[in-house]
């Protein structure tokens, strides 16, 4: 059975996934969910594969309704989630009855929220990914009246008493706020900045309103390049910290053009990129120097938490019969309380 989800208030939202990993070879950015931890968590909480298409909601309120029962999960920046008018928990699986309105309001302390639907969403792909690419004109930007299709319906799972939240899977939520600490490693061209490169770690930077999925622009004291030769275009990593002008620092994010001719001063770590994904204009950023080994260890610790979550979800969903329909219809709801 498939279900239709009607977008009633799109805000600023797209269908995306973890990214177009084959893109850079062909000159296309990886793109995909900017806060990868939150996106993975949403899909895991909804019983999906990490890379399944889901909705990324940036800053503005969002509302939808479905013609079938759903199981969803909402992660990312703090917000108010209501289903059929009832407040519901973020970072937990949530049951939605057919016809109920799912409303996401007041995203704060961060910028992006992720909404995953059990059974995933149908989406066109380019080079194996549903992630929008604004340059080549690919992807699904949601509009009022857009219909999304999901392949699975889940009979409502409800606490029989007082409609209390049913799940408490207890995943660690990323800390968010207006003072951000972002880890970076030395970039391959750090030597070109001489001693001024240290400014990156002693100064505080303010996130400009001209920031987007391609890159964040940060105002503050700028390291200066000591050499001035023309640089050949090179592949630049997501997270590259560059100083293209005298006004701002540029930190490239997942929508970055794959080649550029600016020296790379530093590179934001994988976990640091998730922090920047939630940065709002005006937020303050401090960079902290780390090593590739430490950055990898931090990234692996964070992924290990998601793996623990996946095991809990598998156990709970297995008991409830979610994702294995034949058993589910026979299980009484009380079995899960």
């Amino acid at each position: 059975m498939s279900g239709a989800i009607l977008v009633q208030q799109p805000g600023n939202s797209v269908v995306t996934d973890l990214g177009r990993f084959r893109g850079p070879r062909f000159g296309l950015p990886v793109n995909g969910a900017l806060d990868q931890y939150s996106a993975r968590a949403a899909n895991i909480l909804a019983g999906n594969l990490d890379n399944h298409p889901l909705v990324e909601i940036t800053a503005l309120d969002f509302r939808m309704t479905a013609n079938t029962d759903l199981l969803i999960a909402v992660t990312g920046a703090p917000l108010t989630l209501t289903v059929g008018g009832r407040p519901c928990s973020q970072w937990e699986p949530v049951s939605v009855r057919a016809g109920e309105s799912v409303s996401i309001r007041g995203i704060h302390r961060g910028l992006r929220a992720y909404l995953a639907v059990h059974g995933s969403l149908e989406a066109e792909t380019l080079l194996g990914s549903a992630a929008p690419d604004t340059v080549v004109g690919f992807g699904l930007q949601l509009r009022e009246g857009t219909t999304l299709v999901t392949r699975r319906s889940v009979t409502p799972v409800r606490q029989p008493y007082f409609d209390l939240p049913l799940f408490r899977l207890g995943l660690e939520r990323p800390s968010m706020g207006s003072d951000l600490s972002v880890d970076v490693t030395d970039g391959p061209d750090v030597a070109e900045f001489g001693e001024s490169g240290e400014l990156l770690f002693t100064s505080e930077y303010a996130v400009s309103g001209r920031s987007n999925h391609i890159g964040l622009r940060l105002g503050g004291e700028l390291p200066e390049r000591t050499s001035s030769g023309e640089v050949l275009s090179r592949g630049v990593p997501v997270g590259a910290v560059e100083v293209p002008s005298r006004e701002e620092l540029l930190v490239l994010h997942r929508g970055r053009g794959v080649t550029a001719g600016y020296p790379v001063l530093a590179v934001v770590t994988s976990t640091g990129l998730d922090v920047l994904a939630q940065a709002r204009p005006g937020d303050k950023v401090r960079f902290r120097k780390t090593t590739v080994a430490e950055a990898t260890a931090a990234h692996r610790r964070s992924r290990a938490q998601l793996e623990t979550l996946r095991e809990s979800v598998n156990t709970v969903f297995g008991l409830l019969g979610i994702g294995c329909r034949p058993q589910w219809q026979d299980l009484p709801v009380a079995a899960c309380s």
Partner: protein
Amino acid sequence: MSVLTVAPTEIHECGDSALRVVAISEASEDNWLTVHRLADWLESCGAEGLHGAVPTYDSVLVEFDPIMVSARQVRAFVKLGLLELHHADESAKAPREFDVPVVYGGEYGPDLEKVAEYQGISTEEVIRFHTGKTYTVRCLGAPAGSPMMDGPAFPKPVPRLKDPRLSVPAGAVAVAGRQAVIAPAAAPGGWCVIGQTPLSVLNIRREPLVPYKPGDILRFRQIPAEAFSDFAGMDLVPLELEARP
């Protein structure tokens, strides 16, 4: 059998998910071949945890998933690839050729006169320089798989625009520094646009999205503005497949 001269290389850290391999020979052609053959080798291995490789002129960015492999493992793998290149047969890799019709100047090439003035030559001479050589696609770049090429033999490098355009149309034929390019898709750009091809370069309904690969050869040919519409909507295809007015 012709054998590749593998350039010496350096491998640099580039964050927790990438390495930059730079070829450092004096011979730029050897550098270019080395990084592209290394990228081909890495791609063809299909090794788990390797996302892919982005080769340009003298460097290749190797991207990987740091959960599955470590930077040290990828570094060792790159070194293995570089050793393998010494045995690679170069003779089989014949480039394909593309003919690119271009309307120069006017609304199609708003910077043609500026480029001519800066070079101290006529616009006709700029066009003659631009159409008077064959171009090897050095790499696919941003945006959207642009063919990055060594530019025409102008007297001086071409400065970038002081105020980059917010949108340069698809098909724009542009020059900057000592480089030349065609824009496959509309995007912001700071290069000097001297003309436009009516052919479609990018097609996201097919794979690969752009028809050329690094190593392929492009030639530009001047057509009159009246002929622009004759080509409109046609795809850029290799010469042997061509059937055009």
